[in-house]
């Protein structure tokens, strides 16, 4: 057992995992020294200044982060926002996660823990900045009180408080204890963005070092004294149940301790090591009743979606004018049908959670995108009252939307409940993870555009047919049966507003749900909607003999920020000049998660089917850019997630189950496939709600490349992934 885990174990009742594995349990000052990152002294107990800020006597600043870090950089970005108003020394900043249980006990003082929808920063920037500002005011007041001077004569910068008239100075660490006794001020005034010195700067991430040392502890790495390991098999078909299993076949195997049913549909083997558990599970005879979906295939699902493309009933998500009349009266129409498959998130770290249950207390360690949802799931699964439960968030090896779902947490609790007093780590195999995902919804679209005799676009009908995430996940959020999220990027004005003006427009959705569970897959419905719309816009541009950028420019006259990102990428890629011989270009733009995004691609194609993506220019206008260096990384990463899906990825259904089991059949890009990505981060400011970062750019990756592919080959691919058509990376 290594030291890190011994300490985790010792402190587990109180610890809070923080930046770089350094934690201070809710102002209890517990430290988890980690070889490379340990801070020198073990700090004494320090009360918080307020909920967001703890300052230790050595001037270390601990900023509390409610959202989950899963690689997107939110830990650093949120800390920047607090630190900006706190006016502290950035080099002294560390972070910690409050626990969801503590949030509940403190009447949700940290508000929302949910980390999805690219909302981490954009939904909380105001109140976290207020938290930093309030703490600063308290620290300054405490110093002023000590000096017996008016606070108005004192100023704070870089963790130092100065009394102007006398020149006296003190540091945050020296007055933090006194500040903690003051009332938290309300109605604090925030800085003008033009005065920011930490926000908007490409400051370094706070969590890099342990990740290059192999010292970062992820959920899958957690080890507790006496811990057992569980490997699970859930019914391969969603909706099935366990009929029986023959534990005696494996109970004699080395290390195997228990074979247990989990809920109605799953069985675990619990062993000394996970490898023993997994090996025994493979040998365990389990008889599943595969239930009503046991015969469903992809062809059945596709047929239902095809039917929806022309069904009379559909939910209208966006419309103006009379599209049907415009299209029937058009001089000429263009029509196309597209289809987008199920996809698995395939986070690098498979799902896992660790739980320790006694009738007096349940503790759960979960790499989760939503600590509060994990907490609620743990409470419900354990049957214990909420005050006997807590969840400790532990680092995530990727999330992408998958870890907002709590199935793996529930399973871990249900196992631990059967083994009171024994900590159990449940880890899914990659195969379990691939086949029990929360899949990107499957969707098809039929698009019809109409032109008048003068070649003006007069009408557009975009019919979606396919799965609704909300209908499965949050049915209460449906609006008269309609799933508004289905229309991301195509919706009425708002964070996913449609980015063009078309005189007669109809965008509707025939909801066709399946037994394959849908989920929020990084980029969510903007992904397929951008392919449908932006490839079809190219088809319309071509049909009317117009340039793809000029055609879009004309339609974005009333959408200046859409036009802004479009022009930015067109300019940078040199759209107005011919591309080098053999190089072909494509563009796409959309508004998603409050940000305006566009991409321009340059590709070449060998032999009609081997694509080399040479260069991508990607622009994003989120309004405010908290950390441009991290935004660039999210943008570059978007092209890996988006193009991996476009080229390789699809989950198909046979006999009710997902066929792809591992990365051999659900591949992901390698470095040799990676285009050069040039990012343009446009912080245009203004008073509109801020845009998100983690997801928006993914949606423009595929259509920009597809539009370039068409120009190179004259071929429109409308079903995905490209490998189905024999098209690969060069």
């Amino acid at each position, binding site marked *: *057992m*290594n030291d890190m885990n011994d300490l985790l174990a010792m402190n587990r009742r109180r610890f809070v995992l923080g930046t770089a594995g350094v934690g201070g349990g809710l102002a209890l000052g517990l430290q988890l020294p980690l070889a*490379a990152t340990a801070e020198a002294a073990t700090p004494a107990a320090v009360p918080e200044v307020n909920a967001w800020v703890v300052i230790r006597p050595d001037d270390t600043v601990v900023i509390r982060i409610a959202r989950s870090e*899963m*690689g*997107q*950089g939110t830990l650093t970005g949120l800390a920047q926002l607090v630190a900006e108003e706190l006016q502290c020394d950035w080099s002294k900043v560390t972070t910690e996660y409050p626990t969801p249980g503590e949030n509940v006990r403190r009447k949700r003082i940290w508000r929302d823990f949910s980390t999805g929808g690219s909302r981490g920063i954009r939904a909380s920037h105001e109140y976290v900045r207020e938290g930093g500002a309030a703490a600063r005011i308290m620290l300054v007041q405490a110093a002023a009180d000590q000096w017996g001077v008016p606070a108005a004569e004192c100023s704070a910068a870089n963790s130092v408080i100065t009394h102007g008239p006398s020149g006296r100075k003190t540091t945050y660490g020296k007055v933090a204890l006194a500040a903690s006794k003051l009332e938290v001020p309300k109605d604090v005034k925030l800085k003008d963005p033009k005065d920011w010195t930490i926000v908007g700067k490409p400051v370094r*991430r706070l969590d*890099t*070092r*342990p*990740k*290059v*040392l*192999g*010292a*970062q*502890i*992820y959920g*899958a*790495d957690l*080890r507790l004294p006496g811990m057992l*390991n569980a490997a699970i098999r859930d019914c391969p078909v969603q909706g099935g149940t366990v009929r029986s299993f023959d534990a005696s076949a494996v109970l004699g195997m080395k290390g195997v301790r228990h074979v247990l049913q989990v809920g109605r549909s799953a069985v675990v083997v619990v062993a000394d*090591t*996970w*490898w*023993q558990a997994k090996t025994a599970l493979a040998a365990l005879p389990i008889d599943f009743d595969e239930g009503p979906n046991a015969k469903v295939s992809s062809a059945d699902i596709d047929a239902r979606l095809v039917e929806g493309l022309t069904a009379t009933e559909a939910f209208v998500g966006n419309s103006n004018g009379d599209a049907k009349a415009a299209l029937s009266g058009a001089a000429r129409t263009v029509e196309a049908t597209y289809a987008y498959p199920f996809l698995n998130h*395939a*986070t*690098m*770290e*498979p799902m896992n959670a660790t739980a320790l249950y006694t009738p007096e207390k349940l503790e759960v360690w979960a790499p989760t995108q939503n600590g509060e949802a994990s907490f609620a799931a743990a409470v419900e699964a354990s049957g214990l009252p909420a005050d006997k439960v807590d969840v400790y968030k532990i*680092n*995530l*090896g*990727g*999330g*992408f939307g998958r870890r907002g779902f709590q199935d793996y947490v529930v399973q871990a609790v249900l196992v631990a409940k059967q083994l009171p007093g024994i900590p159990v780590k449940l*880890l899914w*195999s*990659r195969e379990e993870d691939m086949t029990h995902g929360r899949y990107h919804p499957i969707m098809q679209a039929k698009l019809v555009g109409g032109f008048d005799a003068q070649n003006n676009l007069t009408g557009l009908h975009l019919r979606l047919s396919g799965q609704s995430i909300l209908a499965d996940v949050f049915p209460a959020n449906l609006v008269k049966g309609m799933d508004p999220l289905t229309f991301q990027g195509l919706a009425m004005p708002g964070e996913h507003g449609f980015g063009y003006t078309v005189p007669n427009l109809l965008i509707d959705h025939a909801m066709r749900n399946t037994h394959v569970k849908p989920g929020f897959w990084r980029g969510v419905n903007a992904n397929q909607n951008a392919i449908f719309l932006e490839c079809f816009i190219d088809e319309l541009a071509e049909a009317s003999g117009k340039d793809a950028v000029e055609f879009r420019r004309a339609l974005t006259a009333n959408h200046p920020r859409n036009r802004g990102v479009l022009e930015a990428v067109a300019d940078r890629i040199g759209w107005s000049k011919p591309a080098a011989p053999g190089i072909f270009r494509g563009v796409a733009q959309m508004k998603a998660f409050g940000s305006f995004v566009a991409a321009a691609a340059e590709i070449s194609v060998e032999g009609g089917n081997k694509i080399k993506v040479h260069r991508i220019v990607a622009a994003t206008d989120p309004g405010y850019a908290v950390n441009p*260096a991290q935004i660039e*990384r999210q943008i*570059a*990463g*978007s*092209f*890996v*997630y988006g193009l991996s899906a476009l080229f390789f990825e699809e989950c198909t259904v046979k006999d009710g189950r997902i066929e792809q089991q*591992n*990365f*051999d059949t659900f591949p*992901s*890009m*390698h*470095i*040799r496939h*990676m285009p*050069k*990505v040039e990012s343009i981060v446009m912080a245009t400011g203004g008073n509109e709600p801020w845009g998100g970062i983690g997801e928006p750019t993914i949606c423009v990756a595929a259509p920009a490349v597809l539009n370039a592919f068409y120009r190179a080959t004259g071929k429109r691919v409308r079903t995905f992934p490209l490998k189905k058509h024999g098209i690969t990376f060069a």
Partner: protein
Amino acid sequence: MIGLTINGKSHKVDADPTTPLLWVLREQVGLTGTKYGCGVAQCGACTVHLDGAAVRSCSIPVAAVAGRRITTIEGLANGTKLHKVQQAWLDNEVPQCGYCQSGMIMAVTALLKQKPKPTDADIDAGITNICRCGTFQQVRQAIHAAAARA
């Protein structure tokens, strides 16, 4: 008991000889820096060095490495001094979630032993690790930065 030499230290482990090296490292030796991503030699998250060469430890039975020199991510730094690849990773802020990065770094350090100044084509051919966060642009940049260091 199987004798292993890991990061210069001798270990004796009591494991079924067919147990993959990955799980012996993680569960019996307590070195969790080496990650499980796929178990079938597809992703590279479990990459370690065997006698200095990169191997995917999920697909090597522990019995096959008895007595051979194994280096994991934890053994890469020299005391507090980071390996130049780790330093380049830090300087270029490569990791996002970081889960793939132990394997990525081990693959790159092995590549640099064979090709101290790799071209982009060498990198493309030599590095086949999956990173779902999509850090490849920074990975390439950091490889060149590490190669440029003495």
